[in-house]
């Protein structure tokens, strides 16, 4: 879509603002005065094309132009993944302490907890996916770039322990900037802890499916994200170990756009499948079926999820 078309659409949108049929999932705009274009456009960080936010959100936050699957909040992810009203949260009250006494860490956590409706960067629990009962973990990059500290490490570890006990599969939607620096060495140890939990879960025959979402990097890539029996990635998301800037500084040249993309990882043999957001539920359900899990939810719950 060209810029002119977009501008036309904006104008149209302003006029449209009074329309009562405004879809509910669009954040309400202030109709008086002028809106900030940021509210109306999604500017894709991959192809840099701006698209109309309403279309973008209707399309599950996927860039219509290049198919980049952009970041979701944990609630949006849950809504797209779990059967309606099937989610029960684990360890909802867990909060991090301040192991190295990092200045103002507690205040920062508190502020984000209010902003994101989260206690830390991951939500874990049980839900049904098209009738298949599963342990699910969703990382939310809005919370300190979903970095892994004590809480992420402990919740992920417990998720595998619960799943082993209940003989359920585990699906983790990973997203992370890496280790939580503010927790120092304690955050590094979470890599070993989570990987150890997966070793035990795996030895007991458990099925673990990783879904890598934007961005999956650093210590999370170098631990639980890379250890799935099946590793799925969403199209065009960033996946890597080292930061792009760090590598660019080392080699003193600009890296190509596709470097560290989901597609790059698949080509190099580190991702099993790239699956579009709209097909994710059916893909996950199929994988559970192929691993002989029993569908226990009724048809209603299978159809119940929003999308």
């Amino acid at each position, binding site marked *: 879509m060209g810029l002119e078309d977009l501008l036309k659409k904006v104008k149209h949108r302003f006029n449209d603002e009074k329309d009562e049929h405004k879809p509910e999932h669009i954040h309400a705009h202030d109709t008086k005065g002028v809106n900030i274009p940021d509210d109306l456009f999604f500017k894709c960080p991959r192809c840099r094309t701006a698209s109309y936010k309403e279309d973008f959100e209707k399309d599950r936050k996927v860039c219509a132009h290049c198919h980049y699957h952009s970041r979701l909040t944990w609630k949006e992810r849950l809504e797209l993944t779990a059967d309606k009203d099937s989610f029960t949260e684990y360890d909802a009250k867990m909060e991090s302490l301040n192991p190295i006494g990092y200045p103002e860490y507690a205040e920062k956590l508190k502020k984000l907890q209010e902003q994101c409706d989260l206690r830390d960067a991951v939500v874990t629990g049980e839900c049904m996916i098209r009738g298949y009962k599963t342990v699910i973990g969703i990382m939310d990059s809005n919370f300190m770039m979903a970095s892994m500290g*004590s809480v992420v490490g402990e919740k992920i570890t417990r998720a595998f322990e619960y799943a082993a006990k209940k003989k359920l599969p585990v699906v983790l939607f990973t997203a992370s900037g890496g280790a939580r620096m503010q927790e120092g*060495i*304690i955050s590094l140890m979470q890599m070993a802890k989570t990987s150890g939990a997966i070793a035990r879960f795996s030895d007991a025959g458990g099925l673990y499916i990783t879904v890598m979402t934007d961005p999956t990097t650093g210590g999370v890539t170098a631990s639980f*994200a890379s250890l799935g029996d099946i590793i799925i990635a969403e199209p065009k998301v960033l996946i890597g*170990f080292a930061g792009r800037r760090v590598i660019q500084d080392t080699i003193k040249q600009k890296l190509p756009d596709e470097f560290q993309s989901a597609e790059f990882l698949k080509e190099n043999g580190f991702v099993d499948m790239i699956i579009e957001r709209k097909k994710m539920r059916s893909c996950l359900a199929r994988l559970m079926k192929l691993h002989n899990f029993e569908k226990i939810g009724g048809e209603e719950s299978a159809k119940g999820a929003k999308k």
Partner: protein
Amino acid sequence: MKMTATERLSLIRLKNRPTVNDYIPLVFSHFMELHGDRHYGDDAAIMGGIAEFYSMPVTVIAQVKGRNIEENKHTNFAMPHPEGYRKALRLAKQAEKFGRPVICLVDTPGAFCGIEAEERGQGEAIARNLMEFMTLKTPIISVILGEGGSGGALALAVCDELAILENALYSVISPRGFASILWKDPTREKEAAELMKITSEDLLGFGVCEKIIPEPSGGAQNDAQLMADNISEYLFDAVKRLCAVSIDVLLENRYKKFRKIGMFTE
């Protein structure tokens, strides 16, 4: 007198601080180096092989800092590529098969960050080691000699006992990286070093390591032989202690050692 974190940071970067090339001949006898990961290549940043330790066969896996620029070019300043970690895993599995204890000597600024490292799956290689070492059915002892840099060090430090030389450091990121990321100011490196709690005493307090190996007065560089003797003395004790434990108990304790680390409320 105990040195500050900043002083230790300078100390472990001294050109004459002993490296594995100094320690291996002093601590072990008849070290035979084994090469390659059997998938891609041989990474000189990680050296591995079989040696005798008080007449007992052991597998030694070590990150190699060079003693001069030539050696460092060859060993990539002890920053391993994925094939280095995969070689380490291959040798650890071999040790498991033949019932040898594994001794890892850690000394790295971190895993290498580069295009090829990403193409060959640096993240996956580290993750795989963390998982496999956790359930490896033979004793594993890791010793941090100088720099314990992030995931690149941890990939050789999932073990039954972690010992750290008195002045060595172990951290989630280098103090410089910490200052650069959190404060956008790499020049605040010293301030970061003091804040991050990365000294041997800090790590012992956190339960991250089990033992501090004392260094000769002024640092390991002043007496490599004495330093090697201290390492040997610790290893002799640890090997004896861990070999006396049944594998099931060993693995349970290893898991619990990491399982309990984390600071949270609920």
